[in-house]
């Protein structure tokens, strides 16, 4: 037999969902039948989801990509010389030169798809643990300062400076402190947390470990949504391997310091992504939002000082420590520093993960990366920042993606999800859906959110049925004002964002006169 050729077929959920396992099995069977030596690796996904299953072959000139590959394509691909990286109708040439990938600035996702997610050797060979090793050689306060200086802000939605949070926990004395990772990723149109846990889990483990050592915490939890069984399995496996190799456990890398990490499975409540509801849930209670103060940094899990951060926030830390704060801070614009793993979703031709420095525009993302809609029809509406995010009108598509620039026009960057709709979308229906979602997912603590959202559904129904329309539109706006002002958390407080932006920018879908576009 010839020397085995390495072929990669991703194990990411989104690849599995379009048949990656069957492709891998067929490749193995067909190569065996032909007497070809194959070294099949199940890597993470590059995040080019319209090409999944994306098969990569290692050649002397680097990796060569083919996709989307079905099991039926495999014999023909092998005939054409797949194992030599030969041209084929499904071929895309060297993976790294695919423009979608080449144009990105991958810091957090630099390893994504390159490595076998569970291989400690792969991780180590690609800058893994360098941040942790450097952190262990620094005073704790200097580690926290490095994160502060990097300008990293929470990637879960609220964009609060991560270093300040850590500093508060570091400076709050307690016998027991906790690190909690928010992996509830409930926003429609987002999957960067899932990709990280499935495709580069040691990065998250390393980030959480750095946090633990810096603030003096010895226990950590990753709260993962139950809709992510593959992420949970991969993370559990990775934690066991990291522990066996001494990166976690009672003596982290021989430092004499302990960090014990555990995965906890959520149970399908969107509001448990809100940090205090999440803590309640971890404590074994109903996930009801707590009033703040006290801040979780002072009284968090089981009443103890707790760092709670999003997956991408923690995952950004190893590189910040490995290369220094300045390296990270040099990306981005204004007070939005570093990069954001942006997720293109919905009706988009080339949906996938795009990591770019802040400052990229929606138009670049929608067209240069996304290639317009999957349906080939005009884009009508784009929701940025999850189900509580604004429908961003075309007049704002050239605004740089930047927390402050978005806030200035009433938009939110949130967790970086972008959901595209074509011109068949009915914005009154989407507004109704936003209210309905809030009614279903409200934790029930405050009246404007619990009752207001149900009223909101009814009012929108009356508007679309043209029952006393002008009065009902006024009622809807009043209701939104009440929710904005009278809600304890962003569930009730931001549901008006999609509702009002739909109403303001697409009044014709509510049966109202079309605004003068030129004047708008």
């Amino acid at each position, binding site marked *: 037999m010839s020397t085995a050729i390495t072929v990669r077929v991703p194990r990411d*959920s*989104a690849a*599995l*969902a*379009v048949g990656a396992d069957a492709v891998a099995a067929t490749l193995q069977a067909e190569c065996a039948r032909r007497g070809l030596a194959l070294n099949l690796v199940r890597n993470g996904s590059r995040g080019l*989801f*319209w090409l*999944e299953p994306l098969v990569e072959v290692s050649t002397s000139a680097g990796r060569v990509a083919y996709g989307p590959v079905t099991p039926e394509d495999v014999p023909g691909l092998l005939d054409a010389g797949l194992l030599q990286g030969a041209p084929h109708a499904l071929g895309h040439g060297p993976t790294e030169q695919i423009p979608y990938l080449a144009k990105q600035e991958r810091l957090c996702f630099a390893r994504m798809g390159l490595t076998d997610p569970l291989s400690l050797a792969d991780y180590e060979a690609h800058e893994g643990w360098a941040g942790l090793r450097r952190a262990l050689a620094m005073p704790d306060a200097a580690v926290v300062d490095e994160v502060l200086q990097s300008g990293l802000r929470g990637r879960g939605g609220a964009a609060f400076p991560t270093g300040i949070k850590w500093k508060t926990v570091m400076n709050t004395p307690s016998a027991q402190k906790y690190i909690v990772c928010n992996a509830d*990723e*409930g*926003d*429609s*149109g*987002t*999957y960067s947390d*899932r990709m990280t846990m499935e495709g580069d889990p040691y990065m998250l483990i390393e980030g959480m470990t750095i946090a633990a050592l810096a603030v003096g915490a010895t226990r950590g939890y990753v709260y993962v949504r*139950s*809709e*992510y*069984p593959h992420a949970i399995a991969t993370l559990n496996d990775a934690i066991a391997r990291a522990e066996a190799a001494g990166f976690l456990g009672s003596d982290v890398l021989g430092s004499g310091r302990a960090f014990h990490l555990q995965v*906890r*499975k*959520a*149970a*399908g*409540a*969107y509001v448990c992504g809100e940090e205090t509801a999440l803590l309640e*849930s*971890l*404590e*074994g*209670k*109903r*996930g009801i939002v707590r009033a703040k103060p006290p801040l979780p940094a002072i009284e968090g899990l*089981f009443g103890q000082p707790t760092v709670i951060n999003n997956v991408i926030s923690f995952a950004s830390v190893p590189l910040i420590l490995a290369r220094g704060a300045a390296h990270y801070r040099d990306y981005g614009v204004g007070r939005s520093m570093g990069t954001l793993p942006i*997720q*293109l*979703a*919905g*009706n*988009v031709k080339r*949906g*996938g*993960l795009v990591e770019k420095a802040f400052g990229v525009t929606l138009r670049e993302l929608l067209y240069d990366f996304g290639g317009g809609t*999957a*349906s080939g029809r005009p884009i009508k509406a784009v*929701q940025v920042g999850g*189900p509580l995010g604004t429908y961003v009108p075309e007049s704002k598509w050239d605004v740089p993606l930047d927390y402050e620039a978005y806030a200035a026009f009433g938009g939110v960057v949130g967790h970086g*999800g972008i*959901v*595209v*709709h*074509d011109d068949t*979308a009915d914005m009154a229906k*989407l507004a109704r*859906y936003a209210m309905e*979602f809030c009614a279903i*997912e409200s934790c029930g603590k405050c009246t404007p959110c619990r009752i207001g959202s149900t009223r909101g559904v009814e009012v929108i129904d009356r508007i679309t049925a043209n029952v006393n329309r002008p009065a009902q539109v006024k009622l809807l706006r009043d209701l939104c004002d009440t929710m904005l002002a009278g809600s304890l958390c962003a569930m009730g407080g931001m549901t008006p964002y999609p509702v009002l932006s739909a109403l303001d920018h697409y009044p014709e879908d509510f049966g109202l006169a079309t605004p003068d576009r030129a004047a708008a």
Partner: protein
Amino acid sequence: MSTSLAAVRAVLARRADEPGALLPILHEVQDQLGCIPADAVPEIAGALNLSRAEVHGVITYYHHFRGEPAGRHVIQVCRAEACQALGAEALLTHAERRLVCRSHASSSDGRYTLEPVFCLGLCASSPAIVIDERLHARISPAAFDRLIGALENEDAEEAAR
């Protein structure tokens, strides 16, 4: 003692001392028994020093937990925005008709349970569904019918064996 109560007690014996043990316990019980039966509630409450009302409150608060067993096959259809943008609503309506099953319910023959869900993290390959824990993306109504057809064939073969 019923076998299911024995299973509940075994889970409790292993996990009751963990901090914040209730959710992990409920998950394990449901994974083993397919639901959290009513007679498990007092057992769990007793072991964790909680009232029955507290345990019941937690079970009913979370969408994931069920008090009754599901149908033989659980079909989840994502109905969140990214999937809506590529026809999730029509897909859900189609699923209801094809499975003869309403959303959030089981078919009268107990074969299917149909659950609309909010996002499976497959939003760049929508619409997405789950059939008995297996993910499927880019699902048209025709693709849905093929998957369900294959499932029915498997069931028929198993019944014939």
